[in-house]
């Protein structure tokens, strides 16, 4: 890769303001101002991967294995990516516990997605699943084993046999209780075998787009404040989800949807962002989820009046009602003013009425968890909980090969040079609702798919198309503007406003008036982004600047999420509305199809939302794209026609 310096101006500094320390570099004058010139370093690679989680690492070393000169840009060290927190298992139809067929897994996933998943992508994922898991095992991932030495599989995540008619399937493979951690470390170790260039702690600012083609990425090196442009024929986005738009989420502080925002700023759409997976009982403040087993063992949810409010919402099932009913009931209680705490924004999960011995034997470790994350003694006080975001089904739209697509003139059009995989992408295998243990599978299968597609269509060492010498200027201008921002609101204040608004208006309880109010509030908060104030004027490890850049990314994701949710007038999967409780498909699948007239495309909702944002004004434009209903090979694996989803 060739490296040349476009601008070179030594930053010497006296920092004025509260910190008041002076330092000089290379003997320059002590009172010289901080430089506002940005040294830019250019790199050339065959492929660039943004993000080094499960999907990013798999794509990066898949490309290196195929001989491509690959760079992997990541804002975190690879083993610190959020994949490490995935402790559940990974689904694959290996057939070790009973006879199994990947077509049954295909059926379960299509049904779980509430028929919003693209069946060709789901076909690809479930067919590749056994090979992917065996490949991971060959890389050294220590799956748990049966007595015969085969990989042990357990029942989990809505999996069935014989297209739902054969009972529970055992498909979930795991590594003790740290599958994601082990996956990430295995992939990282494996990737070191190949000569991928890692650029760790580089914050990717924007894509370098020219004539609708992606020609690389521009990034900020956090360590020394230099700007780096990575020119490449192929760019893969694997930046993860955007849980941090909500006040309560299980994601790391670094899950800020950077990839989605980069794509939005490039004028490309994001798909299905309104589908966000919630869990009813997440610990207030910490974001860890409390298992449903607590309620199964007799725990109850109480509001500020000490009332067991679930009795009113689900008189029979009470606290054991399904997750979405519990989440909505909790949210309604909070909205009506019966929440607890100083802000009255959560409820309590009470376990101290149960005998402590029972808690210790049935739920070992819960007292430890409650003490560490909530600071309560579970045998004396209730745990503060509220509905918490866990996963984002939506993201950058791709086809089953991992290529990013737009929908223009009634057809899917591939964006040349751009690919996406992992939680950042929306292939869409999870559709309206993700099944448990399918996410880790999604990472490895589509990470590999991106690498294979690139290897198929391009050769290592291909000449790069020319790029304007001023490419990336706007990103640097934006960076400069934020670095010297001198408004009145701190980044943390605006972020908290956004998170509270999203939690109150775009969370589990969605209804027309609430969403509309939320949209207006979010638009207003988006406008306050012009009034930000940052404090650190330096460029070396400026976390204030990076957090503000992340806030810009979060805001783009948040406005798209809430506007898409407001427009979608039906309930499907994770998007449940009080005013439109039913699914609106092209036919009414609860009745026989004979004699029914097919609704036109603009009158039903079995379609993907494609959202665009104008970054300057924050205006969201929505378009729709049909769901792909055919599988990759109708002879091998017949499509699953839509039906009513009931378990």
């Amino acid at each position: 890769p060739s490296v040349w310096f476009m601008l070179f101006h030594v930053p010497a500094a006296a920092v004025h303001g509260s910190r008041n320390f002076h330092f000089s570099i290379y003997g320059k004058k002590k009172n010289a101002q901080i430089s506002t010139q940005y040294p830019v370093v250019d790199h050339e690679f065959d492929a660039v991967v943004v993000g080094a989680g499960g999907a990013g690492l798999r794509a990066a070393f898949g490309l290196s294995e195929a001989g491509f000169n690959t760079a992997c840009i990541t804002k975190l060290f690879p083993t610190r990516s959020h994949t490490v927190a995935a402790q559940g298992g990974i689904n694959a139809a290996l057939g070790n516990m009973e006879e199994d067929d990947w077509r049954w897994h295909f059926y379960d996933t299509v049904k779980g997605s509430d028929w919003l998943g693209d069946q060709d992508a789901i076909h690809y994922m479930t067919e590749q699943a056994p090979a992917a898991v065996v490949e991971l095992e060959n890389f050294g991932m220590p799956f748990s084993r049966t007595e015969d030495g085969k990989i042990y599989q357990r029942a989990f995540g809505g999996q069935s046999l014989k297209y739902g008619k054969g009972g529970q399937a055992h498909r979930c493979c795991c590594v003790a209780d740290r599958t994601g951690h082990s996956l990430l470390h295995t992939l990282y170790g494996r990737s070191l075998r190949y000569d991928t260039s890692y650029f760790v702690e580089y914050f990717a600012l924007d894509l370098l787009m020219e004539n609708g083609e992606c020609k690389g990425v521009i990034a900020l090196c956090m360590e020394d404040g230099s700007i780096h442009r990575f020119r490449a024929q192929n760019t893969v986005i694997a930046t993860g989800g955007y849980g941090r738009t909500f006040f309560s989420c299980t994601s790391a502080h670094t899950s800020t949807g950077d990839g989605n925002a980069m794509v939005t700023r490039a004028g490309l759409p994001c798909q299905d962002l309104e589908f966000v997976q919630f869990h009813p009982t997440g610990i207030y403040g910490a974001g860890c989820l409390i298992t449903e087993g607590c309620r199964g063992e007799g725990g109850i949810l109480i509001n500020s009046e000490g009332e067991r409010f679930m009795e009113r919402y689900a008189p029979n099932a009470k606290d054991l009602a399904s997750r979405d009913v519990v989440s909505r009931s909790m949210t309604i209680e909070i909205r009506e003013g019966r929440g607890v705490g100083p802000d009255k924004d959560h409820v309590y999960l009470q376990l101290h009425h149960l005998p402590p011995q029972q808690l210790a034997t049935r739920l070992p470790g819960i007292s430890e968890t409650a003490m560490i994350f909530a600071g309560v003694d579970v045998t004396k006080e209730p745990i503060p909980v509220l509905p918490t975001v866990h996963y984002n089904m939506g993201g950058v739209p791709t086809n089953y090969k991992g290529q990013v697509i737009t929908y223009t003139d009634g057809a899917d059009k591939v964006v040349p040079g751009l690919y996406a995989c992992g939680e950042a992408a929306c292939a869409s295998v999870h559709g309206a609702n993700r099944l448990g243990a399918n996410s880790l599978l999604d990472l490895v299968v589509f990470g590999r798919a991106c690498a294979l597609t690139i290897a198929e269509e391009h050769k290592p060492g291909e000449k790069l198309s020319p790029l304007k010498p001023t490419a990336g200027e706007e990103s640097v201008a934006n960076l400069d503007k934020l670095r010297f921002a001198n408004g009145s609101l701190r980044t943390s204040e605006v972020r908290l406003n956004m998170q509270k608004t999203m939690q109150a208006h775009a969370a589990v309880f969605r209804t027309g008036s609430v969403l509309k109010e939320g949209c207006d509030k979010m638009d207003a908060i988006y406008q306050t982004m012009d009034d930000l104030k940052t404090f650190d004027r330096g460029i070396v490890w400026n976390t204030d600047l990076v957090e503000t850049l992340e806030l810009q990314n979060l805001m783009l994701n948040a406005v798209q999420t809430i506007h898409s949710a407001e427009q979608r007038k039906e309930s499907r999967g994770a998007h449940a509305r009080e005013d439109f409780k039913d699914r609106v498909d092209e036919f009414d699948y609860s009745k026989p199809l004979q004699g029914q007239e097919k609704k036109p495309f603009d009158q039903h909702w079995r379609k993907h939302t494609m959202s665009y944002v104008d970054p300057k004004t924050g205006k969201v434009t929505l378009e729709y794209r049909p769901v792909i209903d055919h599988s990759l090979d109708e002879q091998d694996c017949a499509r699953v026609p839509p039906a009513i989803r009931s378990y």
Partner: protein
Amino acid sequence: MSLLRFSASVSRRLLWKSAAGESVSTGCSRAASGAVSDKEPLKKAKTPQGRFDLPEEKSKDVLEKFPDDVNPVTKEKGGPRGPEPTRYGDWERKGRCVDF
């Protein structure tokens, strides 16, 4: 000087309380009385170095490892410790739900 010694013995008592678990009372009395009975083996002085000679209490994890790492009921080798994580429909560990 005596105040120092008092506070030192108090802090030692607190330290012993947290480290020694069930053997708190004996530890306390030994520190408080200062007398070493003849039945006890000869111990080093209660200097930091001396403290490290005590048999270390293994921190008891609430989820115990299975013998040979094989789950006796399901015969799974290398699986999750403690009760079956999926028993409540979600993946549970130490009261936390990690997947659902």
